[in-house]
């Protein structure tokens, strides 16, 4: 009996379902093409997507507060170009990286200010920053990728290994772990969840909501900026047009991983598994030699089907059982209509 109920609860656990999907995909690809199931290939996948993994992990915390960032792609491109320009000017790489991170974190500051201080919705604020950042990235290099005067060790960051592991995988592991600790072990995760679930309650409990949201915007910006540095170092040039769909991949991974756009719940683990699923599908389909256009179609189908399963099957049943009768549910949501409307009246 007990085993059975434990099994049932495991099946209903979203992360477990995701993990099963991940394993099944690996089994399928491994049996379909022999070049898939190899250590080298997994290293490749992780190195190539290290930036996605730790950015998505950090952005999960932000999404838990009900906010998200569309400007990560722009930040990544901008940071990569800036890092290459600074390195090309002869600055020591560490200094160049630090300056780049500082500049990249400005994206977070502006996003955070627009969202917290000026009450602009995160979609619009970060969309605006996506345009501005993307433009600035092209502007500072005049549209040409930067490779002049790069020092010989420019690519050292991504080439070096520690204990036989590529450094980028280690960075991803550390980044994901830090985000996981922040989400599960520190107050930041709890506060983020409280803010996404009931902003009023969080504020009235004495949480400085604006500061938490602002901090998380900066955290995500720092990750995107680091992602830019890593990408520049990986491809050996500061390219303003790199990783076009980074922001979309980040958001897709988070949402597939069970964090809704409105926040309030979600796990870093779920995001990471979901990101790995996306990565594995991309890699596996390429290994199978499937035409890129079909890959696009398959990606779309999987996205819709996976989210439908996530929302409709495993999760909703859980919710149904947990939610008490309608009469009780009423007073839950802290944001009142009045506040909404007044805020909207002001913004739009």
């Amino acid at each position, binding site marked *: 009996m007990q085993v059975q109920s434990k099994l049932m609860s495991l099946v209903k656990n979203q992360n477990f379902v995701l993990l099963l999907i991940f394993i099944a995909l690996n089994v*399928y690809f491994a049996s379909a093409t022999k070049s898939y199931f190899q250590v080298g290939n997994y290293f490749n996948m992780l190195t190539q997507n290290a930036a996605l993994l730790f950015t998505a992990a950090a952005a999960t915390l932000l999404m838990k507060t009900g906010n998200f960032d569309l400007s990560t792609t722009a930040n990544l491109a901008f940071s990569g170009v800036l890092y290459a320009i600074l390195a090309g000017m002869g600055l020591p790489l560490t200094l160049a990286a630090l300056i780049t991170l500082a500049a990249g974190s400005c994206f977070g500051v502006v996003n955070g200010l627009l969202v917290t201080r000026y009450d602009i919705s995160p979609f619009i604020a970060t969309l605006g920053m996506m345009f501005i950042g993307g433009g600035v990235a092209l502007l500072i290099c005049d549209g040409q990728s930067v490779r002049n005067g790069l020092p010989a060790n420019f690519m050292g960051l991504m080439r070096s290994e520690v204990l036989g592991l590529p450094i980028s995988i280690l960075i991803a592991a550390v980044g994901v772990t830090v985000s996981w600790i922040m989400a599960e072990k520190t107050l930041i995760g709890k506060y983020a969840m409280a803010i996404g679930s009931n902003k009023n309650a969080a504020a009235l409990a004495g949480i400085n909501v604006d500061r938490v949201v602002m901090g998380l915007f900066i955290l995500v910006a720092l990750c995107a900026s680091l992602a830019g540095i890593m990408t520049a170092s990986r491809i050996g040039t500061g390219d303003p047009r790199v990783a076009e769909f980074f922001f979309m991949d980040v958001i897709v991974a988070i949402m597939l991983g069970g964090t809704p756009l409105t926040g309030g719940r979600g796990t870093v683990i779920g995001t990471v598994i979901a990101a790995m699923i996306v990565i594995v599908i991309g890699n596996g389909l390429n290994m199978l030699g499937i035409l890129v256009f079909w890959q696009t179609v*398959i990606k779309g189908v*999987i996205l819709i*089907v996976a989210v439908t399963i996530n929302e409709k099957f495993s999760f909703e049943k859980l919710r149904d059982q947990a939610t008490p009768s309608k009469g009780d549910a009423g007073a839950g949501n802290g944001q009142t209509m009045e506040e909404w409307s007044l805020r909207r009246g002001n913004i739009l």
Partner: protein
Amino acid sequence: MKKLLTMAVVATGLTVAPALAEDKIVLGKIPYTLEHSYHQSIVEIFADHAEKYYGAETIVVDGQANSDTTLTAVENMISQGVDAIALHSPDIGMTATAVAKAHAAGIPITTTLIYPESKNAPHIAPQEALSSHRMGVVATEQWIAANPDKPVKVAILDFGGFEQVVALRTAPFVAGVKSIAPNAEVVAQQNGFGNTVKSMEIMLDILQANPDVNIIFGANDDMALGALAAAEQLGRGQMDNGVPLTEVIAGVDGGENAMIKIFDPSSSFKLTHGQVRDNARAEVDTMVAMVRGELPMDSWMEIPTLSQEIDYWNTSLAGAQRFLQENFSFDGSLEELLSN
């Protein structure tokens, strides 16, 4: 589970997984982006040639015009253990990285059109600059012959600052123009995003600001076609049986869409240049030679291919027909299409 099932069904339905047979040579081809017909054709001819002459397998992974994706494709091919890689990269710096990675894994690699400054691998070099220059010359000559009183004004649509596009296409073209008309002026240069619709919109604005533009260069045919559509909308875009009236338009690639306009005596899109077949063959031949040890894989060698210049005045219809057949697997008749 449902998802898995969908996955499995879709995947098995579509896959012809290339079996990596031991004795066969396996070639990896990374096109710039399959979104353009030029690259779709080159992939086709590449695979065909590799199979026919060497019995070699071809694996294609799209670079999607993005340096990150392209490098990922290179890395994956290395881990798949292909015998050689042909790379048409979007970025010079990234190309150096890719070549270094392939060499580190002991895999020969060729570059096409874009080569690393390290110059340490064979390079397929379509002589685009030459043909671009020639187009500039021909276009200007034709314009001046027909309209000696109108000073030459050039408008250019490019991809927004790619340096190799400047080196191989736009700069030589302008140089060609200036070699005939030293006072010629480039009055507008904008990003056409390689896209017909965007190019049309932007060219409308350019022609609004500079109605006296009379030579237009699109850095690919799609952009040249967009420029033509814009000109046509403004009642321009015309020639009197090959005599320039409003402007002369030039493009690059030489696909059938462009060709049909170029050989239409009343359209002002009149020049292009391109090369698919020779590039593909040169790539395959070089790769196989390296695999067989006939060529060193890590020393610079330039394999020039002719990017054939085609224009209304100097190329015969039969020549154009042959060009299309050789390069774009064209199986129709240009003449028939023109008479429709």
